């Protein structure tokens, strides 16, 4: 009996690697600490009532952001482990299997469990406030999306200590990802983790499209929407076309692995090339999904911190929308070297180059917003300034990659790694950092410490160039991606060394950000104005943090940059328009169902991963029960009485 338990445990848990034992201990200690703290301070009920069951978009946004920063930490540690291995290619710091697992999880985590949720977090916090709405269109669904992401990500993450991580790369090309070449459970964790959270992403896409189209404050025309709202709209439109492709692709891969179907195997009439086409039909739009909102963030920040209207609003909107559209016609540039023939390659080379035009043009619009402005270099603006050169260089190397015959030399090399990190870190990470610094006071009511922020900024930026510039040269010198070892005689050692140093500089930059947050929570002064940056859009017209109902009375919009115009009017001595009398506010009720239902998905997913039907079936049953319960719940909303609104407003504004 004991023997069989021991044997089971040694297969169930990942064993044999000191790094993983270390992580085991770390995870166990953290969990114990969390349970202890919650119990000691009697916070379980609070946690459940105020957070886990919340349908408040602002709280959901904050939970997204916390989860994604944790994932950034994990993905970052993975990155540094890889970089460490690459400076000592002859030592097995990470053996090849482990290295493969790490770059796979790093890629998946960074894109799907760091960038996506950070983006959704910002959507959630900002969009309703920016368009003058009290909530998103479907608050319950919104909470469900979050918890699906959360439990999907958890499912993916446990593979690290239970059963084994996937190791076929972040896009899992077959046949490597098929049962024949990846018999372990890692690939199943990959499928279910992404699948569960992917459904959440799709629903978020729908939710925000409807929110933006239907819930804008009275008077706000489409062409008066703030730029971040536009970028969210274009990103969400791309989501609803791209994510179904991912869902289907992974479902087919699951059928291959689980039921022995042959969609992507060469025996039985399938074809791996089909998978590669499908996965990139999602994968390429995906990179635009995450970068488009960053463009919106920069537009907001550049205008605010230059104290000037955004230059070329219309051409910006046009650029965003055309990027969404064109992103679906470029996927084949990921396999120019598959021999599709000169004409096919030329076609996709050109469609790829075309997309560089609207992407690049926006930079001019930002520059001319700054031109003849008054630029103050607060953290959000600093990150925007850091972004511009980084993204422009990264974009340029992207154009180089799109030149098909030249790509025969760049493809799968470190040149590519350098390129996509330059756009992903310089564009996406820096962009979302800028957004976080910008909207932080709106979320929490205080700004982050500028001094520590500057340190973080410079460490990240210098670290970035030190880390990734050498990789362009490594690529031109024949070093391929995903190698964990190489001969010293290749002469790649020194550049890899430099690169790793840069990686660690960024790691230190991240620690500075953690310190900055901790320090600011403790020492920063409350922002009582609600408008610390002298902002231009509606979210700055209400107190920080915003009350549950956001706007006591819905704003009436007459112009682009409504809040700025309003401030101008007040400055010129116009009285604010008379406010209509307060009315009771209609709000959705909290619900535990999204949490429980997603947890059931987690259980079902875990069951499928290990092929334990006794676990999968109850999990799925739980999902079904949750749906039933929800459809028989009639008491889903309530009204906040006028008195309470008055009291809240007085308390919030009293100190103004």
């Amino acid at each position, binding site marked *: 009996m004991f023997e069989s338990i021991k044997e089971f445990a040694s297969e169930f848990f990942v064993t044999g690697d000191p790094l993983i034992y270390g992580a085991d201990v770390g995870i166990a200690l953290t969990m114990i600490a969390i349970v202890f703290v919650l119990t000691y301070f009697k916070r379980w009920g609070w946690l459940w009532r105020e957070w886990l069951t919340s349908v408040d978009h602002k709280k959901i946004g904050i939970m997204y952001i916390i989860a994604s920063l944790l994932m950034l930490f994990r993905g970052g540690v993975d990155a540094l482990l890889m970089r460490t291995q690459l400076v000592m290619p002859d030592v097995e710091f990470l053996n*090849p299997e482990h290295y493969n697992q790490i770059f796979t999880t790093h890629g998946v985590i960074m894109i799907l469990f760091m960038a996506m949720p950070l983006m959704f977090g910002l959507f959630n916090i900002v969009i309703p406030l920016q368009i003058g709405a009290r909530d998103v269109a479907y608050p319950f669904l919104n909470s469900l999306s979050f918890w699906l992401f959360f439990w999907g990500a958890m499912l993916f993450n446990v593979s690290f200590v239970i059963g084994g991580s996937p190791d*076929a790369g972040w896009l899992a*090309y077959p*046949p*490597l990802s098929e049962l024949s070449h990846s018999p372990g459970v890692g690939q199943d964790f990959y499928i279910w983790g992404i699948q569960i959270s992917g459904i959440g992403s799709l629903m978020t896409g729908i939710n925000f499209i409807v929110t933006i189209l239907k819930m804008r404050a009275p008077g706000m025309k489409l062409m008066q929407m703030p730029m971040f709202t536009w970028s969210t709209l274009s990103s969400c439109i791309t989501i609803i076309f791209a994510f179904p492709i991912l869902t289907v692709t992974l479902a087919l891969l699951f059928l291959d692995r689980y039921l022995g179907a042959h969609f992507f195997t*060469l025996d039985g*009439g399938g074809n*791996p090339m089909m998978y590669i086409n499908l996965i990139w039909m999602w994968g390429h739009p995906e990179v635009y999904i995450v970068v488009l909102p960053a463009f919106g963030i920069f537009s907001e920040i550049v205008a605010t911190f230059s*104290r*000037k*209207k*955004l*230059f070329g609003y*219309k*051409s910006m909107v046009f650029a965003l929308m055309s990027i969404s559209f064109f992103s679906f016609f470029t996927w084949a540039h990921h396999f120019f*070297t598959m*021999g599709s*023939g*000169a004409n*096919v390659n*030329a076609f996709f080379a050109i469609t790829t*180059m*075309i997309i*560089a*035009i609207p992407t*690049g043009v926006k*930079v*001019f619009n930002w*520059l001319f917003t700054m*031109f*003849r*402005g*008054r*630029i*103050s*270099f607060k953290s959000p603006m600093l990150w925007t300034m850091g972004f511009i*050169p980084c993204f*422009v260089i990264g974009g*340029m190397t992207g*154009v180089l990659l799109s*030149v*098909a*015959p*030249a790509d*025969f*030399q760049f*493809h*799968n090399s470190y040149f590519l790694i350098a390129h996509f990190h330059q756009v992903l870190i310089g564009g996406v990470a820096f962009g979302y950092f800028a957004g976080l610094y910008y909207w932080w006071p709106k979320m929490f009511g205080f700004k982050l410490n500028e001094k520590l922020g500057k340190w973080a900024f410079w460490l990240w930026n210098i670290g970035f*160039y030190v880390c990734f510039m050498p990789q362009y*040269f490594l*690529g*031109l*010198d*024949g070093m*391929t991606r*995903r190698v964990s*070892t*190489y*001969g010293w005689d290749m002469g790649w050692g020194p*550049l890899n060394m430099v690169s790793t140093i840069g990686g660690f500089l960024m790691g230190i930059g991240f620690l500075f950000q953690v310190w900055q947050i901790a320090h600011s929570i403790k020492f920063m002064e409350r922002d009582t104005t609600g408008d610390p940056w002298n902002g231009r859009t509606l979210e700055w017209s209400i107190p920080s943090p915003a009350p549950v109902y956001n706007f006591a009375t819905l704003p009436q919009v007459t112009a682009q940059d409504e809040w700025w115009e309003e401030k101008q009017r007040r400055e010129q001595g116009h009285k604010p328009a008379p406010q209509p009398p307060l009315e009771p506010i209609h709000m959705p009720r909290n619900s535990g169902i999204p949490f429980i239902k997603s947890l059931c998905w987690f259980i079902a997913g875990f069951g499928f991963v290990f092929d334990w039907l006794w676990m999968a079936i109850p999990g799925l049953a739980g999902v079904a029960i949750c749906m039933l319960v929800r459809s028989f719940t009639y008491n889903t909303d309530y009204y906040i009485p006028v008195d309470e609104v008055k009291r809240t407003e007085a308390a919030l504004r009293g100190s103004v």
Partner: protein
Amino acid sequence: MPTAWKRLSALLTLVLTMVLLSGCSDPLMVLDPKGPIAAQQRDLILISSLLCAVILVPVLIMTFVIAWRYRDKPGNKSKYTPKWEHSTKLEAIWWGIPIVIIGILAVITVQYTHATEPSKPLESEKETMVIQVTSLDWKWLFQYPEQDIATVNYLQFPADVPIRFELTSDAPMNSFWIPQLGGQMYTMSGMAMKLHLLADEPGSFFGSGANFTGRDFGKMNFEAKATTQEEFDAWVKQIKSDSPPLTLDGYEKLAEPGVTQEQSFSSFPEGLFNKTVNKYASSHHHGEKESSAQEPEGADKKAEETDSGAGGHDSHDENHAGH
């Protein structure tokens, strides 16, 4: 700001030193081509970099100048126009210039794409030599049908002779890459891809597998050596005399996952390459099509046919027609 500038210049110096450092040691492989295909690719890389620099450099300069000039400090006398938000002329310029540049780049790209199309035979007075390449887990098998020898993880061929590499895989898709001779090409089960390369001069080049295939993929490097015709002939003779033959059993063993040293074989089973291709292709809907890979003659003819034909319908398209 001054400290920021100091930091920035420190950074720029660092980047510059790095560039210079990497410039003085051995030249970077891709920028040091030893064959016509790689040379064209290098030219293309340089041309497109220059074209991009036409935009990149002004933008970088503008960014710094504007950020400096319009920074918010007391007494900054530069103009301030908070409401200025549109100028058709300016917008036309910055939509126009990139469009023109991308237009030029597109034309160049199309030309080069056809010029360097891998399935297109290279022009030369010398007759094309065939080498059949199979990617295995985790090693490369090279078969020389005309010489009837085979090697593992080692490649030798005469310089100045155009080589037609026929590529397939008996393992997950890999990518065959000898940077100094030309860009990579995927090796895929069930089909025979073509890659034409030529070495201008004798030399020893680095080759590798560029597409991830699992555990020991990082060890799939090989030496590609171009020698004179005499040396090559001598080398073939040597292998004929002192290496064992590759049997079918031997191939099965070789194909098992694992790494090996360089090996050579005095002969290989007749039609092994096509068997490997057809092993997967036979289960394709369009198995008949793959017969083009059956004998090198036929395959060659077909490649030429398609090149002179409607254009672009290369062998791979054909192979994939039924997918």
